[in-house]
């Protein structure tokens, strides 16, 4: 069941989606059981930026039909404290660490990659060019030309595998994936959340044109979970057809059958995000059932 991914040997093909699992917080909640039963074959960190971010004001969550809208706003302690405080703790994990980073300029991205390059705890870097909750990064990820230009400019700063996390909010995701490959990405991952919003329930009936009563503190957010799986499957299939580098597929994966479908359309790895909120150990079950021939079958 072990898989090779960008030269890294993984025990199985299931990892976490960035920002959907905090190994350090989980260790506080589950104690040593977290390390003993760690569900992912590799751990992907939440998006780290050069300077600290507080994130969006609450409410940050909205439960949609078979989905979740989040407007978290990429809170993080910033590169420096991530390296100083988090890396030592994350280094204790028994699986490879993939650090997810985001920058709004070539300079920012370059320094993020440089910093990760020097840290042996980090096996690979995932570059987030796709978070719909914040303005930065958006345009780069949605425009193939801009994306390739940026990657070419920063790629040599990192002597480790670079995964580009694409944005699904674009016209032609396969073209963006190809641009990432041309720009030197060793893999692409998708899909990130779909731009979405929700209104405060109680005021659904009051009409205030122009200034609707938005629920999320951040105004708008990103849709994840079961609802987006059909879109994710289509985008992953389109990308896998176009690129030669490995693809990490995600978006609404809830069980081994779903995971198998992403593998079937050409993904090398599958990432689980929102479903981990419903059960933090779901990835273990998925990996186990993927392994047993009839697992996913029984889930049909």
């Amino acid at each position: 069941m072990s898989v090779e991914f960008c030269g890294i040997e993984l025990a199985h093909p299931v990892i976490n989606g960035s920002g959907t699992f905090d190994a350090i917080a989980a260790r506080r909640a589950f104690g040593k059981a977290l390390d003993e039963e760690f569900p992912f074959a590799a751990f992907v960190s939440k998006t780290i930026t050069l300077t600290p971010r507080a994130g969006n004001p609450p409410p940050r969550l909205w439960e949609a039909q078979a989905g979740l809208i989040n407007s978290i706003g990429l809170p993080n302690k910033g590169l420096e404290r991530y390296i100083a405080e988090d890396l030592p703790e994350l280094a204790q994990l028994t699986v490879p660490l993939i650090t997810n980073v985001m920058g709004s300029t070539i300079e920012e991205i370059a320094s993020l990659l440089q910093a990760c390059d020097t840290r042996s705890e980090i096996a690979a870097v995932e570059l987030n060019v796709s978070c719909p909750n914040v303005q930065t990064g958006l345009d780069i990820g949605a425009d193939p030309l801009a994306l390739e230009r940026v990657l070419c400019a920063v790629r040599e700063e990192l002597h480790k595998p670079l995964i580009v996390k694409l944005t699904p909010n674009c016209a032609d995701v396969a073209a963006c994936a190809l641009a990432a490959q041309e720009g030197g990405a060793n893999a692409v991952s998708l899909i990130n959340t779909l731009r979405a919003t929700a209104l405060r329930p109680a005021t659904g009936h009051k009409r205030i044109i122009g200034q609707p009563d938005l629920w999320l503190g951040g105004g708008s957010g990103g849709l994840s979970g079961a609802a987006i799986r059909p879109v994710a499957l289509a985008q992953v299939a389109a990308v896998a057809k176009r690129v030669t580098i490995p693809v990490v597929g995600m978006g609404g994966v809830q069980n081994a059958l779903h995971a198998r479908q992403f593998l079937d359309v050409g993904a090398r790895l599958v990432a689980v995000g929102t479903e981990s909120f419903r059960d933090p150990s779901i990835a273990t079950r998925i990996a186990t059932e993927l392994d047993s021939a009839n697992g996913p079958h029984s889930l049909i």
Partner: protein
Amino acid sequence: MSERIAAPFGRRLLTVTANEPLGAYRVLRAAAPDGAQPAAGQFAMLATAERWGAGTDDRPYLPRAFSYARFQDGEAHFLLEDVGPGTRRLCELREGDGLWLLGPLGRGFAMPEQGRRALLVGGGVGIAPLAIWQDELSASEPLFTNTPSFGDTPGSDDAPRVDSEPRSNLPHTTVLLGFRDSAHAEGAMLLRNSQLATDDGSVGHHGRVTELLRAELDRDAHATVYACGPPPMLESVRALCAERDVSAQLALEAGMACGFGACYGCVVPARSGYLRVCVDGPVIAAAELEHVGIHAGSPQ
């Protein structure tokens, strides 16, 4: 705040042993044989085994957070108020039904500073964590008072578990509970020796429970306050204690997706920045908060 019992990793399917009305509330019990005994103030993420993800709105989709109201004879007790699709499903559970539980989660209450009496202040369904806290405190109280469990008529001798030997010597605990009306006031059966206040004056003091708190503190401020309830109540508890610089521990609520620090969705603003209620709380020192905002409290 220090009490944190680690949870088994992954949600577990429990069997409902009882689901009885308690005035306007319901008390749900489930057998948690292999489950860890929670610390008072900790919570669990719950979902029904059936019809979760159901209904015309396809909600509830994510699990919901509930304080342990009591943990007795290997059974977890929860106090439920039906405020939406998730709580409705849970209120409809019958003996023998399946209940998904992830927990215990979060940080619970800490013992009062030496010599100080515990002053418990609860509003509405927020009384739940105070019940199990009273159990723990009474285990340390000098002389043992009759302790009816749910629905028992006072005087019954079916008593909850008590440690044979007191941990320490504490002055008596004072319990102040506020409710909308008499139907909700029946929830007070969950605790012992409580003074009541109701908005409509149908039971006990006609007015706010915080008015009772003010009187108590004016009478004797040598106390540690433990409070849980709607945000406005918690805010005035915070203010009252701050004025008198009485230390208070507030059990906060916030909309949650995961309950174990993964989603960053449950934050409340604190002096040190945003705190995640699920891992930094739910019990948070009032001193850490400048103000208890609407989103720091029970969603209702």
